[in-house]
């Protein structure tokens, strides 16, 4: 049966479990769902459904599974790797109506929420208890917690407080078989395999997340920020390792290069030194005596590392102003270039000078400027490639340059994605990072959850054929893996 014929059958099947207004099928209604925040990729889905109860999600899954229609789960659509890009023959299952905070347990320090709840809304709801939800991706005012789990999102504070996987206690997941699994427990762990960890970052390919219990932390009593300027990127990079080796784990440790500094400064006037080659933003938090003592220690380390100037926030207003420049770096770069393409590789920190040098060479080669914003503490680079989509071929050039940057990250022992996920965007680079055996094992994991390959198929893990076609396979000891595979 072709997909067009399936559509009326599917609508019929869905109507038995969903109200009519929860099924979108006209082109006009589908259009807003054609992409996520990686808007260079667009596709109209067959249908969009907007269930509002777990039973309705189960009904959608059952209907889709019986007609073998793929399902792409979608939260707020702020993902940067095309994880929620629709499939032309598939249904987009939007969790946008799951917006209730089901409960906050003050004594146990948890919040039970629906997947469509915005990241920041959790911290806002927990604030009266002096608690908050730690992971803070820069899209936190808009992104949903369900999407955070699916992508294992990070943020500027994850060096000290961890990624989503470290801050989730329990998940309820609807399987492709329509069952509800409870993963994790009311305590800090669950029985059996750690499927909670496996589900974090699985990009909607193993199940549909319908309820999440997050951990809440007490809000730190005090926080202070140091901004240090450097006349050389490599010196700034080295200072990062020096701070960590001195026994300090900052709450946030960020770095920006000159292009990013100038763009941000022009946008928010945070008082950044626009002549610096790089700045570091280092935030310490904890009790006030501890923070004061650590600030002194960090100052000495920065001085030793060759900082040309240092500024310490006098109060929260100044601290927030200094952060504002960093948090606004992406839109600030958006003001100086018609388009930009954000990359997300992670590297061992000691490789920073080498990697920045290579990026700068590639930038010259491609004729596209690159601004570097960097979660320096955890080695997570966000090079922003500046381009103009109206110029024929520039997007392709930007993508090619981005791909090469990711390959450099792998070459130095890093990874192609620190926090944005693979989605459709980095699927080719997966062939570079992982061996065919690892990719095959990933497919076997998916098979264990989704034997019909209906949950977000084709994302995140490339087929071995695809890798072979790209010619990007790992070749160990001159032996081509899987010599019997056809290569085109």
């Amino acid at each position, binding site marked *: 049966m072709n997909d067009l014929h399936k559509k009326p059958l599917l609508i019929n099947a869905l109507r038995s479990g969903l109200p009519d207004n929860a099924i979108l099928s006209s082109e006009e209604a589908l259009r807003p769902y054609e992409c996520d925040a990686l808007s260079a990729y667009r596709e109209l889905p067959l249908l969009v459904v907007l269930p509002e109860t777990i039973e309705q999600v189960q009904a959608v899954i059952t209907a889709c599974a019986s007609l073998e229609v793929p399902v792409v789960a979608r939260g707020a659509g702020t993902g940067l790797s095309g994880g929620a890009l629709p499939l032309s023959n598939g249904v987009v299952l939007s969790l946008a109506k799951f917006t209730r905070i089901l409960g906050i347990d003050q004594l146990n320090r948890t919040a039970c929420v629906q997947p469509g709840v915005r990241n920041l809304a959790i911290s806002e709801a927990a604030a009266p208890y002096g608690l908050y939800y730690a992971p803070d991706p820069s899209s936190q005012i808009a992104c949903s917690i369900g999407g955070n789990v699916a992508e294992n999102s990070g943020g500027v504070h994850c060096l000290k407080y961890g990624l989503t996987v470290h801050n989730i206690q329990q998940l309820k997941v609807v399987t492709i078989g329509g069952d509800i699994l409870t993963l994790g427990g009311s305590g800090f762990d669950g029985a059996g395999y750690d499927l909670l960890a496996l589900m974090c970052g699985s990009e909607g390919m193993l199940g549909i997340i319908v309820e999440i219990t997050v951990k809440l932390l007490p809000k730190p009593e005090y926080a202070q920020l140091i901004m240090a300027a450097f006349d050389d990127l490599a010196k700034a990079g080295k200072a990062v390792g020096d701070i960590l080796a001195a026994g300090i784990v900052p709450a946030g440790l960020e770095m920006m290069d000159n292009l990013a500094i100038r763009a941000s400064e022009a946008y928010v006037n945070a008082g950044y030194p626009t002549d610096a080659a790089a700045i570091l933003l280092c935030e310490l938090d904890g009790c006030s005596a501890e923070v004061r003592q*650590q600030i002194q220690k960090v100052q000495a380390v920065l001085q030793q590392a060759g900082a040309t100037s240092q500024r310490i926030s006098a109060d929260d207003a100044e601290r927030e102003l200094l952060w504002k420049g960093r948090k606004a770096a992406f839109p600030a770069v958006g003001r100086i270039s018609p388009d930009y393409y954000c990359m997300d590789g*992670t590297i061992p920190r*000691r490789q920073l000078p080498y990697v920045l040098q290579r990026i700068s060479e590639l930038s010259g080669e491609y004729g596209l400027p690159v601004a570097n914003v960097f979660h320096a503490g*955890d080695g997570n680079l966000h090079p922003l490639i500046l381009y103009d989509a109206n110029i024929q071929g520039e997007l392709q050039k930007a993508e090619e340059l981005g791909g090469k940057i990711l390959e450099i990250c792998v070459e130095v022992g890093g990874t192609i994605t620190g926090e944005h996920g693979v989605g459709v965007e980095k699927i080719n680079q*997966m062939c570079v990072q992982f061996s065919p055996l690892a990719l095959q094992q990933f497919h076997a994991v998916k098979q264990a959850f989704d034997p019909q390959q209906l949950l977000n198929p084709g994302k995140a893990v490339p087929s071995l054929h695809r890798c072979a076609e790209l010619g990007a396979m790992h070749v160990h000891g001159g032996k081509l893996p899987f010599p019997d595979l056809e290569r085109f």
Partner: protein
Amino acid sequence: MSDITQQLQAQVQRAFQANNPLLIRGGGSKFFYGNACDGEVFAAGEHRGIIEYEPKELVITARAGTPLKDIESTLAQHGQMLAFEPPHFGETATLGGTIACGFSGPRRAFAGSARDFVLGCKVLTGKGEVIEFGGKVIKNVAGYDVSRLMAGALGTLGVILEVSLKVLPVPEAETTLAIAAHTNEAIDIMNARAGQPLPLSGAVYDGEAVVMRFSSTELGIKELRKKIAGDELKQGPEFWRQVKEQQHFFFANDMPLWRLSLAPATLPLGLPGSWLFDWGGALRWLKTDASPRDVRDAVAAEGGHATLFKHREFWERQQPYCVFHPLPSALMAIHQKLKTAFDPAKILNRHRLYEDRI
């Protein structure tokens, strides 16, 4: 320092072809843990050595047979530590066994668990394939998180060959304070404190007193002492070591020892026996001869799970009980499929976690 990957791989390949179950053994310090299982002993302990450790990166990579004490002493030389404070349960404990069991000590409640610190690993699957997952960097979301799945899987999805872990600096200063309390008070104190911005790094209730550890800078600890009541326990480090290693007098007899995982503020369960609370109440050790069913029912009613951690032979003599909490059927089905995906002949630690369908 030795790399015996090829030898181990060949042994698994032979066992896979012959459908011959293997009993994975590192240092043998945690052999008591899990369900009884038999098979040919697969000695992985000789695969040892630290491969890479760069203090500035906060990452260590080592072969699984590396003695845990070697890892810890190497880190200590650079003022760093495994922040999940793993118990050794014996001199011979290895890194691989620690991760395979997924054991974490008192600091876990505040710093994170063994699996939280796993960044990547190299495993030998039941098909005899050597595969690397994850990485050696702190943030990495490429591919399914198979390395964290290995933590606590008891080797049933693959023999861990190498592990990369995030490490953290040793706190500059620590203090241990004790406050006498009844059980309900203790639960309140520990959880109220954990909800305040305090540098807590341990919270135990031993039936008489709440014992809390705080970690900060020297000035931070001084300031804290002005705010928090309690008698300073001079032998604090020794107390935490005894709790972690189960050498505290509480653990000294042969009664079945249950490990209950519960929401930390859960009220006392009303099961007979004696109790020691760790992790601010989220981990409860129970010594009891109450029936496994009664223990499990009481814990399940609170959304937790119960493991017959030690002395399973007490019940085995009458009727074998799975030491791990039974899973709902849909979840069990996924477990079986995952096991098959990594170890199709089910030769790796067969039945040790749950009964394998052969």
